[in-house]
């Protein structure tokens, strides 16, 4: 709120002086970012969309072929399954990450011992490369978990979950969550610490149990932070690539192939225009998801 007012007043302030031309130094400050951004993102984006309407293979001659690529993409089971997998995975991971991070944040902000040390440990995964820790987990999933499954006599754990088409995604959710929880956790801790203490004191006096306080006070008051975490998380998880490469490489078969992997694998086997059509679809879906989430946020902000 206060930010908005500042802009408005500063705007007025400026209007009075802006009869003069802007100091050219300001252009010098703005242009490097603008030009590099256009060359690095906008131009490639436009080129990609353009070629999605052609039969280009990346080099040599090409012809326009209208929406052929798009029609092909919509009837390609591999593409449809990669979209379904990516969204299902992103949804499941957002859920797992937020529930665990919220509970950890509640625990870490309660009256515990070693709070600083514990928090420092829980944040470590944030600085570890997803690809590398996924290699470590791959070893554990393929060697240690089946060994434990055999020892305990649990049948579905006796084979590596990564080689089971129905279970491999769970491994990917676990490793992605492992890495994503710290960032989410820090946001929840900030949210919980921003709740004034007297709210809880009043609840104590009214005889509310800890569980009631958690559900009736903490959760509603950090709702805004839940929205932030959901938006940031969903955006990241839609891009899933590194961890999948290390854990399953998209397998078994194509069971865990994300959209990013589909696009890049297709390109590496000489499919350019078709993959650009898929990328363009992905772009619009990502924008739609972002717009949807932002409109939900707006609604929350107004109420």
């Amino acid at each position, binding site marked *: 709120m206060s*930010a908005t007012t500042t*802009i408005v007043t*500063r705007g007025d302030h*400026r209007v009075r002086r802006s009869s003069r031309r802007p*100091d050219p*130094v*300001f252009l010098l*400050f*703005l242009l490097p*970012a603008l030009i*590099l*951004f256009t060359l*690095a*993102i906008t131009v490639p*984006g436009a*080129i990609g969309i353009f070629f999605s309407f052609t039969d280009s293979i*990346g080099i040599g001659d090409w012809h326009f072929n209208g929406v052929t690529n798009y029609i092909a993409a919509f009837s390609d089971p591999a593409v449809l399954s990669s979209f379904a997998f990516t969204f299902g995975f992103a949804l499941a991971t957002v859920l797992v990450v937020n529930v665990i991070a919220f509970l950890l944040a509640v*625990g870490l902000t*309660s*009256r*515990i*011992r*070693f*709070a*600083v040390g*514990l*928090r420092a*440990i*829980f944040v*470590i*995964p944030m*600085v*570890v*490369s997803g690809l*590398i820790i996924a*290699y*470590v987990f791959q*070893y*554990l999933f393929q060697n240690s978990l089946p060994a434990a499954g055999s020892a305990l006599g649990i049948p579905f754990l006796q084979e590596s979950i990564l080689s089971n088409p129905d279970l491999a995604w769970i491994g990917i959710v676990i490793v992605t969550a*492992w890495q994503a929880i710290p*960032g989410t956790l*820090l946001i929840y*801790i*900030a949210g919980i*610490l921003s709740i004034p*203490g007297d709210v809880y004191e009043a609840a104590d006096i009214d005889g509310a149990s800890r569980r009631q306080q958690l559900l009736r006070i903490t959760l509603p008051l950090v709702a805004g932070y839940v929205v932030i975490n959901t938006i*940031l998380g969903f*955006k990241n998880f839609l*891009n899933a*690539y*590194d961890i999948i*490469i290390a854990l399953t490489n998209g397998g078994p078969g194509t069971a865990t192939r994300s959209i*990013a992997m589909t*696009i*890049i694998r297709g390109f590496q086997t000489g499919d350019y225009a078709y993959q650009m059509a898929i*990328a*363009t679809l*992905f772009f619009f879906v*990502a924008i739609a998801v*972002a717009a949807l989430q932002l409109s939900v946020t707006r609604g929350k902000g107004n109420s």
Partner: protein
Amino acid sequence: MSTTHTETIVTAGSTHRSRRRHHRTAWSTTILLIACTLTVLVPLYVTISMAFKTSSQSVDGNAFSLPAPFDISGFVEAWKLTRFPMGFAMSVLVTAGTVVLTILLASWASYAIVRNWDRRLFRWSFFYLLGAMFIPFPVVALPQIQLTGRVGLDNPLGVILLATMFQLSFSVLLFTAFLRSIPLELEESARIDGASTWQTFWRAIFPLLAPMSATVGIFAFLYAWNDFMMPSLIISDADLQTLPVRQNFFQTQFSSNYNIAFASYLMAMAPAIIAYLFSQRWVMAGVTQGAIKG
């Protein structure tokens, strides 16, 4: 608002809010949380213990045993096989380049935008730069692979440029939010002293931006140091690859020499973890500030 959160999180090592509520330590929660740290520590322990095993011990399938005997030949082999010094130099180059370029370009652009908000060019530039926040890298990756190849940027420099551009939206958002909270009087006094816009930025604005630059820098560091996807696609010369990409090597060759693979993983992970352990309060405060402003 967000600064308050950050300060709270920094100062509130053990929360002051609950001190007022319950005066005794919640031991059951403490013990439960300590047990939960195993999910973080066990994978790291496995990495370390596997790395110090002999080749023959590393294939016995027991991930949790201690190395017996203690052996560093895995590190020696990994050092040579992945050409670690070269990979490390490339990772440092890409990370440092991305951090510096992101802070410079984003703070310059944000300063220009905030101080010229009433001018259409600057206002539209803001929304233009911000629009990319939700563009996933895979969407533009293929044309970028081709273009960087064509203009001779299929190397770490190209990765620095592209990584910076993907960090730009978020960083501009953070810097502009922060700049709007800086009172104009501060720089007007510098101007009365006869400083030009350029001098004002470096003398008055850039030092004030330091906490936000730290936040932007931490995010750029974490992204550039750990990313696999972009360098693996953009850098065409395997010898110029960054550390994460070099770990791929063990999936195709030497797949049974786990001690070498894990030694290599450990060497690639350790620098960021050690840097974090020395600056963890600062990193946590920075990330919190960034995430909440964003």
